[in-house]
């Protein structure tokens, strides 16, 4: 059985390995051991705290094959995208340039650097081993996190979002960066991506444009990739869209990748979530696939099971039930996939 569970200190070596595989194009944890350790510690602290209102917490999940103990993916959630430092994005504003005398009514788009999304909760650090892309496991990572957020609403904001990687090629050339960011930084995209993953955000305030950037003045190649998602992240994009996340007027500041957002209550998962009691069933006929979330005090894990839902009873095979190894007091939630 494969479960999504909070990361532990003992996961560090596996996480390092995943981070290296992740490369520059998927938003994986930065490839630095100290950095990863800090993230794990932050996550452990976050789970341990009794949180009444979202703040600096960051929750890091890993996908583990329970038999082998092998890690196959990661996913994290920040309680607030910008807590101690702002979360930056470009907002694509529309300005109406109008002149009655000249009978002209122009819509002019301009990108404004902003902190608007700082108070959103953010899904981040999604990574799955490429071989598993066509399984249900990516859903487990993403929907599992959404389930976690739904089960612990006090830990999160009401608005959620995720930044999806934008267009960049294998050599790390991102058209938006070439025609926009490079003008201000004079460095390569890979380099700024590294800074972004490892440094605090002061450099963004220092280096990024204070003034709105008129989209019409931006090179066509860069305009064309604004809000477009990298093909490697299409899966993630589909998962989020399927739940009701939608790209709004925000794009990421370096590669102009889309930023998906949604109010919690609008997400289909949050509407379909059911509190259930698990029971063992010997007759495994006409089963359905369920995403299962188990909350025990501050602990949370999720997995995907086959079962039969009858009222508030979810019937699983005895083996499954045994593998889950649930304490009696654990709360259990399910969503049909």
């Amino acid at each position: 059985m494969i479960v999504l569970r909070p990361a532990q200190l003992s996961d560090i070596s596996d996480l390092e390995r995943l981070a290296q595989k992740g490369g520059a194009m998927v938003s994986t944890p930065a490839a630095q051991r100290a950095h990863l350790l800090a993230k794990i510690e932050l996550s452990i602290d976050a789970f341990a705290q009794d949180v009444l209102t979202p703040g600096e917490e960051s929750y890091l999940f890993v996908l583990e094959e329970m038999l082998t103990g092998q890690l196959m993916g990661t996913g994290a959630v920040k309680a607030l995208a910008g807590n101690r430092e702002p979360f930056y994005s470009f907002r694509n504003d529309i300005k109406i340039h109008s002149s009655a005398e000249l009978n002209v009514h122009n819509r002019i788009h301009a990108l404004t650097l902003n902190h608007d999304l700082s108070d959103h909760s953010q899904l981040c650090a999604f990574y799955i081993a490429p071989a598993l892309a066509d399984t249900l496991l990516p859903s487990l990572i993403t929907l599992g996190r959404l389930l976690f957020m739904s089960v612990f609403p006090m830990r999160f904001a009401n608005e959620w979002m995720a930044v999806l990687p934008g267009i960049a090629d294998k050599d790390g050339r991102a058209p938006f960066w070439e025609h926009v960011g490079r003008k201000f930084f004079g460095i390569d995209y890979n380099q700024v991506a590294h800074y972004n993953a490892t440094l605090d955000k002061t450099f963004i305030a220092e280096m990024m444009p204070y003034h709105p950037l008129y989209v019409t003045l931006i090179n066509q190649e860069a305009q064309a990739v604004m809000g477009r998602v990298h093909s490697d992240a299409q899966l993630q994009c589909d998962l989020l869209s399927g739940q009701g996340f939608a790209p709004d007027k925000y794009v990421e500041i370096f590669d102009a990748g889309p930023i998906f957002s949604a109010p919690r209550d609008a997400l289909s998962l949050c509407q379909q979530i059911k509190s259930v009691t698990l029971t063992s069933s010997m007759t495994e006929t006409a089963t359905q696939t369920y995403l299962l979330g188990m909350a025990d005090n501050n602990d949370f894990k999720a997995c995907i099971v086959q079962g039969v839902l009858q009222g508030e009873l979810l019937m699983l095979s005895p083996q499954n039930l045994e593998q889950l190894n649930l304490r009696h007091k654990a709360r259990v939630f399910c969503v049909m996939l």
Partner: protein
Amino acid sequence: MMLIRPIKRQDKQALLQLATITGTGFTSLPDSESHLEERVERMIATWEGQAPLSEQGYLFVLEESATQKVVGISGIEVAIGLKEPWYDFHVGTQVHASKELGIYRQMKKLSLSNDHTGHSELCTLFLDPQYRKNKNGQLLSKSRLLFIAAFKEKFSERIIAEMRGVSDAQGESPFWESLGRHFFAIDFTEADYLTGIGQKAFIAELMPKHAFYVDFLSEAAQKVIAEVHPSTLPARKILESEGMRYEGYVDIFDAGPTLEAYTKDLRVVRKSQLLPVKVCATALLGEQILLIGNDKYQEFRAIIGSPKIDNSAIYLTQAQAQALSVIDGEQLRIVPLFEKENSL
């Protein structure tokens, strides 16, 4: 002899003829009869003391005295931007630097400004190409400064002049193509024409309100910022020699430079002096070329010449005195035509 005098209603036909040969980028003398007519009336009202400050302006013509043919025109607006906003781009610098990253970059940016509101403006300089000789251009341009020197209190303490920016033979401006066109889908020649007939403020409403970075313009556009059209280079040199200079403002359409100065700092204002005229039967020649004007407001006249001067008088021929509309003993305002001959 060539002389400068205030414009008259009868000059309208001559002006229309001049307007047809001005070409693109010369916004202040558009080929529009009704507009010219209105402008001439406004100037006459100014001389007659009937125009409010926001409408005051002066137009002078260059006339060949023998034939009374009008071959050039030059103007001054007294206080720009008081009726409709006066726009230009301020060329500024923004430094983006991060100690942590070890990066320091200067970025040029343009921001829409009304900073010249209320300033006086030297405008509308045009000389028939056939008469671009014998220092006629100098007379046409600098006689305005002599007028300002004589009537300083009628002008703002600061003065500007917009210089025509770069456009090609087809009337395409690289700056317009890279910026203006994105905000307003018309050709530069049309924008230029609309500006000339007083529609500039309308167009400006459609232009970028936020400062923007020069780096986002095409290279061709970046190159022409604050550059003048080759045909305007002589005019720029004249004004620069008179104490005006580029201070970081450019036109919002073609990015031609705005030259500016404090009025009191203009060479002609600082150096011109008054001397009584002595009319002589034969010409007495002096050593340098002088710009000579009478100090009369409504009957303003100016010529250039090299008459003898001394501490007590300037010695003119009967023809010169007549051209200047002065009689023996009246005061004339004089200044060397060129800066390097600045010691009277």
